[in-house]
Every structure is written in structure tokens, then in C-alpha cells.
């Protein structure tokens, strides 16, 4: 900052301004507060000038859209060519209800499907498992067998939609079910498009859904890579996710750093298996959060592309420019929604969605304003989708590529986010003695990531409690409200209906065939063979999610996290 001590170099323009204009002004009119910070507790200066981007080299640091290092965007025309995919996450009750919601969303102009599963399905358990009681079909759709998938995609041709599946430990089973439906519909496997989340490292770090320990979990993901490169070349085999890391309370930099570290760990695991980096890379995708601090989020997205491009080309030697591109989905921050004055959430979501678009996202889910209360109603979902449509068609923000590129502030912030993320990545690499895969596994085992995130979450909550972080309607401008919003209720009969269907499938299927498939899968696991072909066979025999994942539990053991605050 400005100093009046003897200078050995000439005064810069900014220093002159600070001394001559700013200082006398501040004496009479102090600023609103001492520190101006982002939601991630990063201090922001009052003004950014060319001095803040002195080392900036346009060709090296930004380049052109569709070219290395892709800071400005992965495609040469970005949204002028094709808008981002508007993809609202949906799923509740039984397959029938979710199938109806899918058809509603397609009719309303949504361009991709995104499936939410209930907790038992996510954890690789069946609806009739004792701990599943009360959770069947509640937070998403219940899926036990291929029969549920046949209903879920009834009347939806798989060669015309792309479908995203937000599921992790049991992702390989769900992926196999989707392939089985394609086979039934006569759609060639190489034509199916979509994404499975299939990112276990961030589960151990943040979201906490698992079946078996970290190492065999990564091995199974690599099985999916091997199988998917060959069989479904248009399908994203993983969505390396920062979203949940952020929702668990991390800062923007931690979200970015841990996600890219996970991505590098998966690439290394694949390389160890002998998979060619250029064969795999185009089928990797990413998933980020878009939170409240508008510019910090945009900087995060831009830095993500630049770091990944450099890592893939320089560290892993990828040759194909497509391998260098970081393509990502964004969801607005669920944790930023407030239960108080819920309509205010529409405005929050709009700003977060705008940040994602200005950051160059490939697809976007906008949260519904009522999601701090319950699952969203149809009306709330429609407003969320309309928010994207208004951004896309009315605001003009989609008409120009990377409109904030060149802003002193945004470039300086992009550089800073990048440097801080690289610091973390180096630290993780050291934890693994040069291996990112080992570093991430060690970090999970030692609780490194979990503690970093819990610390950040606690710092933020204390800032909210003290009023340093303002949340309108929560710690400022509060009102007494009589909240009786219209919320979505899950029919309590859902569990009964789902249990009845599961029972019927178990009675009608060829149980000897199921047994045979499960035994074959177990043998494959013991021999260290790729599990995917065996999972697919078991799925086609109507084995349940719980039965199939049960084989993995049996062979590799269950996982329990050491509890720590």
C-alpha cells in the first residue's frame, strides 16, 4: 500500500492517487468497514489497476477461446454457438413419479436430464434394508433393480437425451443399468450420452457416501474407465466434483484445489492401469459450485481451466488438445439458500448462475428457492429454469465470450486463486511423496481434507454469527414471518409401493441366474479382473443394487470413517 517513506523507485500512478486523492478523502469519509472479504474469507482490495497484473502475458495466460490454456473458454464460439445445457436435477418417490417429472422438464425446454437418487440407492443398499426405513424415495428416486430403470426411462429415447446420474459408490451399477436400457431400446452403446458422478475421492473428503474403503473404490472407478472408453465413448465416466466439498464448508480455493487434486489422482490411477491419457481425458468432466462471492467464483472457473490444461499437457503428457480442456457442470450453492424469506433465494440463485455463465460453464443447475425448506415444488423448479432462460435469451451475457477477461480485478483474482490452489496441490503431492494418488489417499486417511474443510466452515459460521458476513434476512433485515410455503411432500406410500415392486421382481426373476452372476462377479474381484462386464450381466438378470454392491463389501470390507470434529 502507499507509503511515504523514502522510495528508491519512482512513484507509481496508483501510489500518487492514494496519496493525493484517496488519503485526504478517507480522513473525512472512512470506508464502511476495516476488511472487505469474500465468503471464503479472502481480503479484497479497493481498486485493481495494471500494477496488479504486471507480469500478465496475454498469449501465455489467456490465449484464445478453444485454445490452450483455455482460460477464456473451451470452445471457439462458446454460447454464441450453443448455449450451456440447462440441466435441473430431479428425482423423488418411485420411478413412475420421476419419469413424470423428467417428461415435464423436457416439455418445459430443459435440454438434459439429471437424476437424483434416494439415500439407500446412493449407499448401495436395497429398499428392504433395515436402515433404509424412512428414506426410500425421499431424497431422490428409489432404484433397486433394472425394472425401476425400465420405468424411469419409459418413453424417453436414450439416443435423444443426455442423462446425468448423481451417484457414487453404486455408480457402476447405475451405469450398467443405463447401458442395459440402451440395449433394450436398440440404441447402440456408442451413441449414449450422459455422465455418472462416480467420484469416490470427494465422497471420503466431503459428501460421505461409500460402500468400501478408498483404494478398492478407486480401482472400481478405473474399471469403469477401461470399460467405458471402449463401449460408451460419448459418456462422461466421472464428474470430478468440488460441489460437495464446497457445500461441506470449504473455501473457493479449497474447492478448486481438492477437486483438481482428485482429478490428478484419477488420471494417475488410470495411467498405472496402462490406460492412455488421451484415451481417457475426453471422458472426464468436472462439477463445481457457484457461491455468493461473484468475482471470486468467476476467477475460480477461469483458473480451473488454466491449471488443468497445464497439468494435462505438461505433467501427464497429453497430446490431444481435447484432453487439455476442463469441461464442467455447475450448480448454484445449496448451502447459500435461506429458510428465512425464501423468495430472496431467487435473487441469490440468479447471481450465482450469472457467475457460472460468465465463468464459462458447460451445463448448469439452478437451485429452487424453496430448497432450504424441502424438496422443490414444480413451480419453484420452473422459476429456477426460467432464471437460466432469462440469462440466456434476455440479458445478452451469452453473446460474447469471457466478457470479464482483461478486467484488472478478475485477472488478478484469477492469478491469486490459481497460486493458492497450486500451493495446496504441491502440499498434497508432498504427502504422497510425489504421487497425487497417494497424496490424496493419505490426506483422506489422516483427515487432512476433512479438517481443512471443517475449519473453514467454522470460521464462516463465526463470521455469520458476528455479522461480519451478512446474510440478508438471516442476520440483517430480519422479519417475523408466518411461513406456510407450499412444499413438496413425498407420499408415505412410496416406500410400500417400492417394497412391493422389489418383492415381485425377486419372485419373478431367475434366482439361480442371479446367484450365478453374483458368484461370477465375486470370482472376478478375487482374480482382480475388470468388474464392469460382470456387473452388467448381474443387472440384466435383475440382481439388486444391494446384492451387487454386497459382493464388493464381502470382498473388500465396509468403510467407516473415524469420527472427528
Amino acid at each position, binding site marked *: 500500500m502507499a507509503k511515504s517513506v523514502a522510495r528508491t523507485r519512482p512513484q507509481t500512478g496508483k501510489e500518487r492517487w492514494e496519496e493525493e486523492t484517496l488519503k485526504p478523502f478517507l480522513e473525512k469519509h472512512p470506508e464502511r468497514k476495516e476488511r472487505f472479504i469474500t465468503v471464503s474469507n479472502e481480503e479484497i482490495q479497493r481498486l485493481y489497476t495494471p500494477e496488479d497484473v504486471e507480469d500478465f502475458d496475454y498469449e501465455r495466460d489467456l490465449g484464445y477461446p478453444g485454445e490452450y490454456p483455455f482460460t477464456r473458454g473451451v470452445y471457439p464460439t462458446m454460447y454464441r454457438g450453443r448455449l450451456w445445457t440447462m440441466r435441473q436435477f430431479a428425482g423423488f418417490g418411485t420411478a413412475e413419479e420421476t419419469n413424470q417429472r423428467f417428461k415435464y422438464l423436457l416439455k418445459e425446454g430443459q435440454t438434459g436430464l439429471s437424476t437424483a437418487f434416494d439415500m439407500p440407492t446412493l449407499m448401495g443398499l436395497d429398499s428392504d434394508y433395515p436402515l433404509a426405513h424412512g*428414506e426410500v424415495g425421499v431424497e431422490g428416486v428409489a432404484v433397486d433393480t433394472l425394472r425401476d430403470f425400465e420405468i424411469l426411462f419409459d418413453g424417453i429415447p436414450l439416443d435423444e437425451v443426455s442423462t446425468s446420474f448423481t451417484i457414487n459408490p453404486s455408480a457402476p451399477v447405475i451405469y450398467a443399468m443405463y447401458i442395459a436400457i440402451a440395449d433394450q431400446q436398440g440404441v447402440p452403446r456408442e451413441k449414449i450420452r450422459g455422465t455418472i458422478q462416480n467420484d469416490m475421492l470427494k465422497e471420503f473428503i466431503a459428501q460421505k457416501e461409500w460402500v468400501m474403503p478408498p483404494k478398492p473404490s478407486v480401482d472400481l472407478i478405473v474399471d469403469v474407465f477401461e470399460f467405458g472408453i471402449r463401449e460408451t465413448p460419448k459418456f462422461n465416466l466421472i464428474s470430478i466434483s468440488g460441489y460437495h466439498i464446497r457445500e*461441506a464448508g470449504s473455501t473457493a480455493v479449497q474447492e478448486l484445489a481438492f477437486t483438481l487434486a482428485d482429478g490428478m489422482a484419477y488420471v494417475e490411477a488410470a495411467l498405472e492401469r496402462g490406460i492412455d491419457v488421451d484415451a481417457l481425458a475426453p471422458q472426464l468432466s468436472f462439477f463445481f459450485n457457484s457461491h455468493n462471492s461473484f468475482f471470486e467464483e468467476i476467477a475460480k472457473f477461469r483458473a480451473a481451466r488454466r491449471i488443468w490444461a497445464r497439468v494435462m499437457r505438461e505433467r501427464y503428457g497429453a497430446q490431444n488438445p481435447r484432453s487439455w480442456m476442463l469441461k464442467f457442470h455447475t450448480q448454484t450453492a445449496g448451502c447459500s439458500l435461506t429458510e428465512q424469506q425464501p423468495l430472496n433465494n431467487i435473487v441469490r440463485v440468479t447471481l450465482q448462475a450469472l457467475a457460472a455463465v460468465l465463468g464459462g460453464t458447460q451445463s448448469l443447475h439452478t437451485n429452487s428457492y424453496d430448497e432450504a425448506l424441502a424438496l422443490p415444488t414444480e413451480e419453484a423448479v420452473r422459476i429456477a429454469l426460467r432464471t437460466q432462460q432469462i440469462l440466456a435469451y434476455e440479458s445478452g451475457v451469452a453473446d460474447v465470450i469471457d466478457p470479464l477477461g482483461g478486467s484488472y480485478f478478475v485477472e488478478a483474482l484469477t492469478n491469486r486463486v490459481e497460486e493458492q490452489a497450486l500451493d495446496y496441490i504441491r502440499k498434497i503431492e508432498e504427502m504422497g511423496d510425489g504421487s497425487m494418488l497417494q497424496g490424496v489417499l493419505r490426506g483422506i486417511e489422516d483427515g487432512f481434507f476433512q479438517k481443512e474443510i471443517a475449519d473453514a466452515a467454522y470460521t464462516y459460521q463465526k463470521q455469520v454469527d458476528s455479522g461480519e458476513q451478512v446474510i440478508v434476512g438471516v442476520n440483517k433485515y430480519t422479519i417475523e414471518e408466518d411461513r406456510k410455503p407450499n412444499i413438496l411432500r413425498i407420499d408415505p406410500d412410496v416406500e410400500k409401493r417400492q417394497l412391493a415392486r422389489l418383492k415381485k421382481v425377486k419372485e419373478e426373476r431367475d434366482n439361480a441366474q442371479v446367484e450365478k452372476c453374483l458368484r461370477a462377479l465375486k470370482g472376478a474381484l478375487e482374480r482382480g479382473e475388470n468388474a464392469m462386464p460382470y456387473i452388467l450381466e448381474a443387472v440384466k438378470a435383475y440382481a439388486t443394487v444391494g446384492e451387487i454392491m454386497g459382493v464388493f463389501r464381502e470382498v473388500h470390507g465396509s468403510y467407516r470413517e473415524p469420527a472427528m470434529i
Partner: protein
Amino acid sequence: MSTKTPTPERSSEEAPTKRIRVLMAKAGLDGHDRGVKVIARALRDAGMEVIYTGLHNTPEQVVRAALQEDVDVIGVSILSGAHMTIFPRILELMKEYGMEDVLLIGGGIIPDDDKQKLKEMGVREIFGPGASTEEIVEFIRREVHEQKQK
């Protein structure tokens, strides 16, 4: 499986006012542990003894842990939507074990109507998103104090 916070300055000579003991628990299948950890730390910083169960507990495991640890308060976090199954079962077990003097509070995304019903059943309070840690600390101190007056 559970973790305990260290208990500083607890000498056996002087009998200080007994610190409030709290079991913080995640019940059900969901892994959303941001809130439960923030609250656990805030209670600890406010001078309470906090025991955290970790994830994925059944109502039986929660109540048994509370009984073993002889806590004053059980705080259960649920964000899976299974609250109308899990809380009534915990209350039932608490009754079975004669734990009527233990305060049961909850946290999570729980609709107002359900909150009302749960409070009628005996859950003392439900804190949703936006509740401040100070509010929760104050509530526990007041309720535990009143319970001890009885």
C-alpha cells in the same frame, strides 16, 4: 467410533459445576456433517463436553451412546428427510431406558409442520438452517439449567 473432546481443568479436589455433556449424533444414511461439526465445535468452545458419534447411526446406537456417556443433551442431525421415522424411534427408546431428563434437540432441513409434530412428541427444539450457534448454546444452557431445578 466416537470422539471426545479433551476435558481440561477437571481436578477431583474441587468439584466445579458439572460441565454440560452433549452427544452430537448423525442418524440415518445421509452424510451431511457440516452442521453437526460446526455445532459440536461451538458447544465445545462454549465450555461443554461434546461427544460426536460420527455418521450413519441407528436410533438404537444413538440412544445407547447417550446412555453410556451419561449426557444431558442429545443433538441429532438429519438431512435425509427421514426425521419422522428417526426422531419418534429415538424418543421411544429414551423412554424405554428412563432417559426422560435428557434433552433431545434436532437439526436439519425439517418442514414447519413436521417441526410442530416432533415438538409435540417431545423433541425440545429443532434448529434449521440459519440458526446461530449462540442461539443454540443459550438454549441448551437454559434448558439444562431448568431441568436441573426440577
